[in-house]
């Protein structure tokens, strides 16, 4: 019997070592990439990113494998160091080695510091950080002109602005409202502690979490573009985009809340012979109602802000109006819109913070 578990431990250790190898491989590739970037940069090109050769980048893949093999032969690498600290099957495997020196003095510490330094250098170059552009005279004059106009809003268009602001607020409201029941039901399937009993439930858990992550990692802006082609531009496309994104975001938050509940009541209700649905209804739901409400209100608040932004790509509302006036350079009108948005966002923020405070 115990040999089965020894095998299991060995298998887990192998898995962890593979994960460590992948991390190290990625770091090696990143190091070679950085070196390549620096070489091009010091040849004096203005925009080194433009000069990167795809062919070279592909060649770096096998090169990184070789580098990883060599480096990991002689040193304790960052990936291994990371997993040794986090994975219980690797913990204690190399005890003296990891504890004898402080992390920053070890090989993995030094290499991580070098990589961070390289990232800063390349990052400054890529983003064109320039004090000259920031304090250029012409630029400053232009900026002051716009700020001046913004500070003198054209209040004649206030009626139109408020109308479009209402569209935006309702967009956010409907998107949130429809996202709630879907996210609520999905969240139970996405909570690890409820889905660990059988293989089917484990698979469901992983599928649901994967879908949440995919939907969430695509910005509402992109979803709005997709839906604008599907249902044509207008507030409905914005509503759909926000709803989809909210389902995934709320679903993830809800699921994590379920994972954080106290297991005790769960055990107690299970012990009475209750079935799964009864356990969830009586032991899980009472523990999550308040946090759910609080997340949801916060989400509505976020959605109002998001609805403004996705208006820019055709989802209607205040964002569309903003784009119109900005395109025509009518800065006084833009100023009016900016002020209305600021007031609404501030009010939503204030309201949602107060409600959440009252709930907790």
């Amino acid at each position: 019997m115990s040999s089965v578990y020894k095998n299991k431990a060995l298998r887990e250790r192998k898995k962890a070592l593979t994960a460590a190898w992948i991390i190290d491989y990625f770091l090696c590739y990143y190091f070679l990439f950085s070196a390549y970037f620096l070489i091009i940069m010091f040849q004096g090109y203005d925009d080194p990113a433009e000069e990167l050769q795809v062919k070279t980048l592909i060649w770096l893949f096998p090169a990184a494998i070789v580098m990883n093999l060599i480096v990991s032969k002689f040193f304790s690498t960052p990936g291994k160091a990371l997993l040794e600290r986090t994975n219980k099957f690797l913990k204690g495997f190399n005890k003296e080695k990891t504890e004898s020196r402080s992390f920053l003095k070890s090989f993995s510490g030094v290499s991580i510091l070098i990589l961070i330094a390289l990232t800063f250098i390349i990052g400054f170059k890529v983003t064109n950080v320039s004090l000259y552009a920031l304090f250029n005279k012409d630029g400053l004059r232009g900026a002051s002109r716009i700020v001046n106009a913004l500070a003198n809003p054209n209040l004649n268009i206030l009626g139109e602005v408020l109308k479009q602001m209402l569209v935006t607020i309702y967009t956010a409201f409907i998107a949130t409202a429809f996202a709630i029941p879907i996210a609520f039901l999905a969240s139970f399937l996405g909570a690890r502690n409820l889905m660990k009993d059988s293989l089917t439930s484990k698979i469901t858990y992983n599928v649901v979490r994967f879908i949440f992550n995919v939907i969430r990692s695509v910005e509402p802006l992109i979803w709005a573009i997709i839906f604008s082609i599907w249902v044509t531009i207008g507030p409905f496309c914005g509503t759909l985009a926000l709803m989809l994104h909210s389902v995934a975001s709320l679903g993830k938050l809800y699921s994590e809340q379920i994972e954080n509940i106290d297991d005790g009541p769960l055990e107690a209700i299970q012990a009475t012979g209750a079935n799964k649905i009864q356990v969830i209804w009586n032991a899980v739901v009472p523990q999550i109602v308040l946090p759910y409400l609080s997340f949801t209100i916060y989400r509505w608040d976020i959605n109002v802000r998001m609805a403004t932004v996705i208006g820019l790509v055709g989802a209607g509302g205040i964002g569309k109006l903003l784009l119109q006036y900005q395109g025509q350079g009518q800065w006084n009108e833009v100023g009016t819109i900016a002020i209305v948005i600021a007031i609404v966002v501030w009010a939503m923020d204030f309201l949602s913070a107060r409600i959440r405070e009252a709930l907790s």
Partner: protein
Amino acid sequence: MTILSVRNLNKYYDDGVHALKDVSFEVKKGEFLGVIGLSGSGKSTLLRCINRLIEPTEGEISLNGQSITDADKTELRVHRSKMGMIFQHFNLINRKTVLENILLGKLGSMGTLSAILGKYSAQDKKRALELLDIVGLADKAQKRADELSGGQKQRVAIARSLMQNPEILLADEPVASLDPATSHSVMKYLEKANKDLGTTILCNLHFLSLVREYTDRVIALRKGELVYEGSSQSIDKEWFSKIYGDQAKEVEIR
């Protein structure tokens, strides 16, 4: 008559820890059996294996001759509904009232829909109030569970488990987070359930003085092995150091 029998029970956790090693014992109908041992000796694992809140790895457990270990999901629910359980941390549903908490004991024998709608029969409600009276909290029925003190919560938990009309009560360190005086009051209610209602009790305990005072018989675990089985009165110094190690000194709770 044997009500619960445990044979060659083994439990390995995923990380390879061998928490129970070939544990075998029987519980007789109507007895108050204590389980003692150090923290980490496997007492909690043992209790949770009996109603399969933790899946046993090997071995055979049966209630009234019917196998628990071989039961499928539906059968397991029936078995569980016949075994009440109370916990060190009470595990009440804080946002529900005391009465609602007690009625939860009925879940095992209810349909899903009526449980969600909270449709308990008048008979169940009457029984819940009776039990509340038995544990001396008749005036607290409509209070929220989180307004009660620790000892009161544990008494509600006892009432909840009695609501199941259990054939056996599994008590996992029921007084370990209570002060000495409250401990005795809670133990007295367990004793009452045992003597007056005839409920068989299997109870994990820390203090030998409680074991001597309340239990009929005792088994002891050490590092997952059953090292002692016998009358609660006959645990002497020698056995004590076998169970708890040579360094240990007995502490009493009065």
